């Protein structure tokens, strides 16, 4: 739902400009100017295409029901009203599930960051014996998994079903993130750590006082990656949680939309009930669900670009 791709391309263009201004004497070639124009047009189109559906949803959430049905709502709300917001916000289950999502995201992200950092830091040390095996174990899980039913049996017999741990512990380490982080740690100058060791810091001291302060960019990036994926995820929660007051808001949203569109599969239900969630209600729930995670983006984005780059260039 929250995509990263087009945004990351943006900051490159302003960065290019001061460089060209410095060489004031040389005019940019014609080819370069054409390229810039095309670039701007294409990127603008990409932005429009990416933004349009979201703006449309926001407009719908603020609109009256009639113009939506008539297909008149595009970018600007028609017949502005907030009834749907009031309606959604008055459902206690929505807020219970919303709180769950926040709690799950915060706890899961914290656990993931701690585990991933520790694992990645260890793996970045070339002198570690059995390093290849440890990397192999992690990478293996990228390609093979026990599958749904064995996983379910595992979680159940560990007694984690219907608890927060079923959501935050499995998949706590994302192997892709682990490898990015490992590459980043490998790129740190080894002399820094040697100096710290000479000054008497233990391994943990080095990690906490020297390495981590230098790794804010990559950690911010990882927090963003993890937080977004936990915020959006619904499948693990759906698998392991049987009580609706434990579910995250994503499952609530999914059920709401399915209830509105799945009238035919619910034939028996439709017999006596047909009050389907109106288009505005869906839009409002979508807006309220995506808003917080969207708000996080602008603040972390600057770290995000440099963070991934730092890990990636290491050759």
């Amino acid at each position, binding site marked *: 739902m929250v995509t990263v791709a087009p945004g990351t391309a943006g900051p490159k263009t302003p960065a290019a400009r001061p460089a060209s201004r410095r060489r004031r004497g040389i005019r940019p070639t014609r080819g370069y100017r054409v390229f810039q124009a095309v670039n701007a047009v294409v990127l603008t189109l990409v932005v429009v295409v990416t933004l349009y559906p979201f703006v449309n949803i926001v407009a719908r959430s603020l609109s009256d029901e009639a113009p939506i049905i008539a297909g008149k709502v595009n970018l600007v709300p028609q017949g502005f009203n907030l009834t749907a917001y009031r309606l959604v916000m008055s459902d206690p289950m929505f807020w219970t599930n919303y709180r769950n999502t926040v709690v799950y995201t915060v706890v899961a992200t914290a656990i993931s960051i701690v585990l991933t950092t520790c694992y990645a830091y260890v793996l970045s040390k070339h002198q570690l014996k059995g390093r290849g095996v440890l990397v192999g174990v992690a990478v293996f899980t990228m390609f093979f998994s026990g599958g749904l039913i064995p996983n379910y049996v595992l979680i159940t017999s560990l007694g984690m079903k219907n608890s927060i741990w079923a959501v935050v512990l499995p998949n706590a380490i994302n192997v892709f993130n682990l490898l990015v982080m490992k590459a980043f740690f490998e790129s740190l100058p080894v002399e820094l750590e040697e100096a710290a060791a000479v000054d008497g810091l233990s391994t943990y001291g080095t990690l906490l006082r020297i390495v981590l302060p230098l790794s804010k960019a990559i950690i911010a990036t990882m927090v963003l990656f993890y937080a977004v994926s936990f915020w959006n*995820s619904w499948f693990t929660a*759906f698998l392991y949680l049987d009580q609706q007051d434990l579910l995250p808001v994503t499952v609530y949203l999914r059920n709401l939309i*399915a209830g509105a569109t799945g009238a035919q599969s*619910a034939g028996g239900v439709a017999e*006596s009930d*047909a009050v389907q969630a109106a288009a505005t209600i869906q839009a409002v729930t979508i807006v309220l669900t995506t808003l917080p995670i969207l708000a996080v983006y602008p603040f972390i984005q600057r770290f995000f670009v440099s963070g991934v780059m730092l890990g990636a260039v290491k050759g």
Partner: protein
Amino acid sequence: MFHRTWRRVAIAAAGLLTLTLVGACSDDAPDAKDLDGNRAGAMADYGIDKQFKATEPLSFPILYNNHPNYPLKDDWLFWSELTKRTNVKLEPVAVPLSDYEQKRSLLIGAGDAPLIIPKTYHPAENAFVSSGAILPVSDYLDLMPNLKDKIAKWNLQPEFDTLRQSDGKFYLLPGLHEKPWAEYSIAVRTDILQQLNLQIPKTWDELYTVLKAMKARYPDSYPYSDRWSKPNPGGELLSIVGAAHGIRTGWSWNPATWDPAAKKFVYTGATEQYKQVIVYLNKLVAEKLLDPESFTQTDEQARQKLANGKSFVIGSNAQTLVNDYRPDLAKTLPNAKLTKIPLLVGPAGEINPASRLENGVMISKKARDSKNFVAMMQFVDWLYYSDAGQEFAKWGVEGTTYSKDAAGKYTLNPDVDMIGLNPKGSKHLQKDFGFGNGVFSYGGRLDLVQSFFSPEEMEFQKVMNARTPLPVDPPAPLTDEEREQASLWETPLKDHVIQNTLKFILGQRPLTEWDAYVGELKAKNADQYIGLVNKAHERFEKDNG
């Protein structure tokens, strides 16, 4: 991004499930008749029209399909009153409606399924039969007097035969209707009919004339623009036009059609009736009477066209008429009048295509080993099949939620609302009391099924009930290996049929190529497939008389 992950997980799940199902071997079942160790809590004298009450407090876990419109609440009167009447406490395992089927597969595959598994639509239970996780309920009908009584009284044996597996048993306890309940038809703008001095059409041919007149008056419109094109294009439209020709297609697609004259099955997509369906719809599209987008557009697009007066006819059921179209039109075209008309009649005559079976309940095999097994079957029988149980699940408690007059007419109490009957009511029958819940309440006696219908819908049902029910095809249950083979043949066949149906109807392929198309079906093993079905049918006849 997470959509792709989901799909990968789903594929992994499907693959694993298959492995698990193949891997699990059926253990030796206990002797079906020996129930001496399973009678704890059961009533010795349970019978028809007798209130079930367990002799000791019992609790049974149940898989619960959680509907977003009336989310599960623990303090529903339904739960407490149920326990008061039956001494049974249900422990719901709540699953969101959006992914109920998936969770059900997972729980059954993991051996963690609750004992009672409702909301299963035939043939979904087939997938679980070979694993041995589901109880062959047909062995235990003696424990369920109300169910047996209704099968006999309403003459439902042929319908039940269609549920049988190749071992001659069935594994699903379906919901029952006294009369077939036709839901889907088309809705027509009667104000336009009046304006053009036309009668409400009764047959598909009359509809053609009506559409033509509408087109002549409003040349810019497509008079008929339909919805419900998912999961297969033109799902509902093909289904009702097909029914009028005596075949099951579209949503109700059934690849094998019983030919009573030849006493064997034939492939639906190659029949003469199927061709007639295509020819008819092709005519509508060619003369621009039917919107070609009917087969692909979303429901919302179809609704918008109707609301904006760009179309005058649309597929409908009782709910969409009242909840979608009329409110839409009231906002955009206040003078418009829309009516759901009785299902149009075609060459097959005046028939009612609806089935008398509903979705139903599966029982986990684990229940058989429980000492409360007999009590549980009696409980299920009372709740789902007794008149008292059905009335309770649908209407609630007399005096609290509803009242009933001498003629048997139900009325909601004034402060209880349901489908807008008491808009001022402070409480909702489903949301606040838990009655009229799709998990527990469906089907039943005609007067019970219709007790919530508006006078208008009653009128529609009266016409439909006067018609002959579509005869049920004889059973032809496949064995596991056969089913696998059949689906290998049937999947590409169905794709080919759907693709070419659209091409023919939309005029992308000339109808003169019909014979070539039938040849293509043969090349894709249509004959082998039908041979398999016929063989299964003969085997069933031989084994079961």
